[in-house]
């Protein structure tokens, strides 16, 4: 069995280490460059969100390099993400690839890990899980240490777009290049907590404000978390908030006006970036640069 999974930014190495510890052969997903994305775009529906195209491209690339088992997490949320695995499986089977798809969900996460590593004792498994959790924390810590700028920018928005550089045209590294400290609202550790429903503990005040703002209605996907994290950043005096989302992303479209209102109330600059394979990188670069300049001039005037 040769396992592969979609590329997830800086966390890819954690994934590879995790599967190696389980004693499974793993094909490391390569960085998703322009050439690889082209394939995913070709076989995905036109109006589908950009992360799906990247996931599909990543899978095709792994399959071509000999993977026979694909793993994709299903968050059981209520946006298109829920159907990624069904769509990808069908599209790839139609292309003639032979593979099996494993879809772990939050409720069967542990039993799934148990199954995939058939001959490991349970105590060792739990140690591996614990080590991986620490590994994720370590990677995030190392990533945060690269913040050496003079302005703080919080990124909120769709989970995959925030963390995968190919889905956001290297947003984080570009921001750092222009001298900004970057914090991602929903990173992988938050995402896992979210999946296991452990995140109800933190950000209690923010949650209450967000609920009042939405009059108790829920937004599918990560829309609600975007709003909560915006309030979190705003209350901690961040200098700017960027909403990163794939073009046509339904939950974030709903969240956008709420985040705009929060930023207006707290008087924080706010920018929306929508990503798609057709978006010009120069344009994105321009806007990121101008946004940093705007913040710096605003701070400097004070």
């Amino acid at each position, binding site marked *: 069995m040769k396992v592969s999974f979609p590329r997830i930014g800086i966390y890819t190495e954690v994934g590879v280490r995790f599967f190696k510890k389980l004693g499974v052969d793993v094909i490391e997903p*390569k*960085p998703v*460059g*322009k050439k*690889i994305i082209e394939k995913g775009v070709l076989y995905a529906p036109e109006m589908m969100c950009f992360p799906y195209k990247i996931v599909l491209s990543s899978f095709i690339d792994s399959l071509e390099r000999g993977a026979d088992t694909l793993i994709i997490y299903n968050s059981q949320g209520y946006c298109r993400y829920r159907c990624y695995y069904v769509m990808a499986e069908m599209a790839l089977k139609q292309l003639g690839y032979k593979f099996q798809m494993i879809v772990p969900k939050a409720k069967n996460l542990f039993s799934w890990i148990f199954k995939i590593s058939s001959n490991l004792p349970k105590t060792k498994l739990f140690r591996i899980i614990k080590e991986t959790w620490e590994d994720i924390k370590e990677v995030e810590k190392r990533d945060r240490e690269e913040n050496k700028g003079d302005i703080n920018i919080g990124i909120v928005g769709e989970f995959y777009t925030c963390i995968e550089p190919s889905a956001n045209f290297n947003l984080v590294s570009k921001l750092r290049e222009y001298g900004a400290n970057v914090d991602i609202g929903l990173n992988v550790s938050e995402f896992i907590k979210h999946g296991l429903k452990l995140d109800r503990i933190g950000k209690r005040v923010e949650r209450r404000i967000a609920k009042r703002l939405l009059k108790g209605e829920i937004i599918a996907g990560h829309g609600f978390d975007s709003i909560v994290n915006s309030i979190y950043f705003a209350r901690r005096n961040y200098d700017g908030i960027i909403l990163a989302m794939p073009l046509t992303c339904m939950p974030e479209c709903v969240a956008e006006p709420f985040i705009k209102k929060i930023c207006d109330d707290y008087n924080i600059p706010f920018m929306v970036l*929508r990503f798609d394979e057709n978006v010009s990188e120069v344009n994105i670069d*321009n806007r990121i640069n*101008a946004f940093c*300049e705007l913040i710096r001039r605003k701070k400097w*005037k004070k």
Partner: protein
Amino acid sequence: MEEVVLGVDIGNGTIKCVLMNERKEIIDYVYTKNMGIIETLKKSLSILLERNKNFKIIGCGVIGAGRKFGSIILGADIVTTEITATAVGVINYFPGDVTCFEMGFEDSKILLIKNGILVDFAMNTVCSANCGAYIENVASRLGIKVEEFSDYALKSKSPANISGKCAVFGTSSCVSKINLGFKKEDILMGVAMALVRNYFSMLAKGKNIFPPYVFCGGVSRNKAIVKAMEEYLEEKVIVPEYSFLMGAIGVAILTIEKGIKGKFKGYEFIDEDFKTETIICDKCTNNCELVSIYKNGNLIGRIGSNCGKYNI
């Protein structure tokens, strides 16, 4: 010999060069069509230097789409985006609260300035049906010069209804109007109104714009667009004297304010031989197009790599 700074705006349509002294007064400017960055820059710089022999350029700021390239060959002290530079330029003339509309050849922006600080901005993303390129398209399709556009359009009494949202469909809508026997001036005024409608529906979405309105960028010289904009907003739109140079003025001011490092290489640039070479990098799957710049056969800079490894 008075010391001056040079502000250069390398846009998609035109290249603007401004000479400014330390009291922030404009001494001279050159406005030329962009026909290839090296030749045009050489031409405009030599015109500028020819006309102003008693001034010495000590610093330089570059903005615009070609800023990375321009900064290497000119030795710029400041390289920044058009948005920041235009805002600085506008703030210089209009301290206080203003909304600035900027329409260039392929970019259009809206800048909200409060108390002399840029607080919000928007920029067109994919569609250019709100920029100068659209006007140029329609004008060439109807066989008139861009400069004559407003002369024709302002004669119109009942503007045609042109569908907007896309430059390609907009142009084809013009063609069908010609075949229906519409007058040229009515079509042109219709285009101006469609362009303004597009601009506001795309960029002013969700923004609270407030008067006074200032209109900058190359398109602001087109009086028909100004009229259409005034009709749309039902408010007066101010077009400053140097509206089309606002970005270059802004970057010149920034150069003066932020300090001159004396890296300016413009004097040598005119006489020397520059060549570029593009290769497609195959080190990873991104396949970046790398542009190497050679001066007299020696490599002086390389731009275009995403990872930054090969940039010089």
